[in-house]
């Protein structure tokens, strides 16, 4: 048994592996389209999750309003004066009639 104060290589190895994994996966995230609040959206949203989950959505203005408000409730830092601009940016960038995002393959089995 390990005491709490002893160096635990397994735990450290796991932490280092996870950190490296997170960094690389984050680097692979899709770019958000240009727009008036692109940088603010990137900062506020990708604090917790990467942009894959944003760019695959195809939602109406009303649905985007719900999503933005839910994320603010869950801790996304969005200045109240920017809320409507966020919703407009997301609604214009990822509307219901836009073609679906093609799924990106990962790993050694990636298709060419």
């Amino acid at each position, binding site marked *: *048994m*390990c005491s*709490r104060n002893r160096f*635990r290589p*397994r*735990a*450290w*190895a*796991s*932490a280092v*592996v*996870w*950190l*490296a*994994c*997170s960094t*690389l*996966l*984050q*680097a*692979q*995230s899709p770019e958000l389209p240009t727009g008036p609040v692109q940088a603010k959206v990137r900062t506020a949203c990708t*604090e*917790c*999750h*990467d942009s*894959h*989950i944003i760019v*695959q*959505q*195809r*939602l*109406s203005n009303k*649905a985007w309003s*719900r*999503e933005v408000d839910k994320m603010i*409730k*869950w*801790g*996304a830092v969005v200045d109240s004066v920017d809320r409507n601009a966020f919703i407009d940016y997301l609604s214009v960038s990822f509307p*219901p009639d836009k073609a*679906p*995002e093609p*799924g*990106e*393959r*990962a*790993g*050694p*089995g*990636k*298709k*060419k």
Partner: protein
Amino acid sequence: MLKTITRRGFLTGISGGIAAAALVPRFTWAAERGVEVPGKAGMIVRSARFLDLEMPAEFFSSWITPVPHFFVRNHMHEPSTFDADNWKLSISGEVERPLSISLRELAKVDAHTITNTLECAGNGRGFQQPKVPGVQWQRGAVGTARFTGPRLRDILQRAGIKASGKHVMFRGLDEVPGKVPPFIRSIPIEKATDADTLIATHMNGAVLARHHGFPARALVPGWIGAASCKWLTEIKVLDQEFDGNFMKPGYRMPNQLISPGGEVNSADTHAITSLGVKSVIAQPGDGSSVSSRPLRIHGAAWAGEAAVARLEISTDGGTTWRDARLGSQQARYAWRLWDHVWRPQEPGEYTIMCRATDDQGRTQPQSAAWNPSGYLYNAVDQVKIHVLA
């Protein structure tokens, strides 16, 4: 199916799992700047952080899904560190003797194996019209594996369930960002004490991989994947359903049919439990051009706690249907593979469809019941192909 894993084998496996977690990952940039996800191969990245990986349709060709192809659904960050020596699983709440079990103690409890098709409740959400928010899964947030571990009821009986115990709550070691509600859910006591509900420590004969809940996860067979909490660390017996975001408003279906795009009265909903009847086409792929004659059409069909009784194929857009052959490999909660050999008479465009029927008489609908979260999508699957001259 019953299988026993020895204590020595389990502990050896645990050590191996930790070693593998440290040694196997090679963070190399793949061709075209694709990222290699440790332990996974050829998966569709729906989200990189939190990790959500979908199995491509062509991998529906194996009755047991290899772990590298098994889908991953994470609501939160995976635990960043793990200390096997200090990991404990606590059992508390409406029990006579609250207790805490170490990994070594868990390994001493008789283990059982259940072959189960695990499917995310949101699988197929990407096909919903009008579109709804969430991970836009298509066909592959589902897989079949052999899960092994102690029966949950054996652990609960050690603690002694009080008569007031009606639901069993699971909490994992997920790391919660911001003010996001923790991923905590509960299942009714009847399902928790079913002989087939496990605390799984192994998957396909190996120690659970990190992405699949190492060192222990709940395995609630036949039910939506969200019931099978990963990185399990706390079990609590409750006198009522857990009251939290991922029980309500999350993972609920409207009691009434909703017109597509319509509003739902949250009071008129119920928690999702078992999976519906569903089938998908593995190959040929949607949009593909084929020249082979005869052409083998194949895929998988499942029905949660029920059994698949029939699989039909249409090669003319649903006008006529023929029975496909169901594969011989089967287990109570596992999908059936199926195939059908088709000889197209002439070149051209074809729409191929499949639909499953289970032993409760449920048949896949032509269009799925729309709901604002896109849960339990199970419409007849279809692919459009071009048959070459």
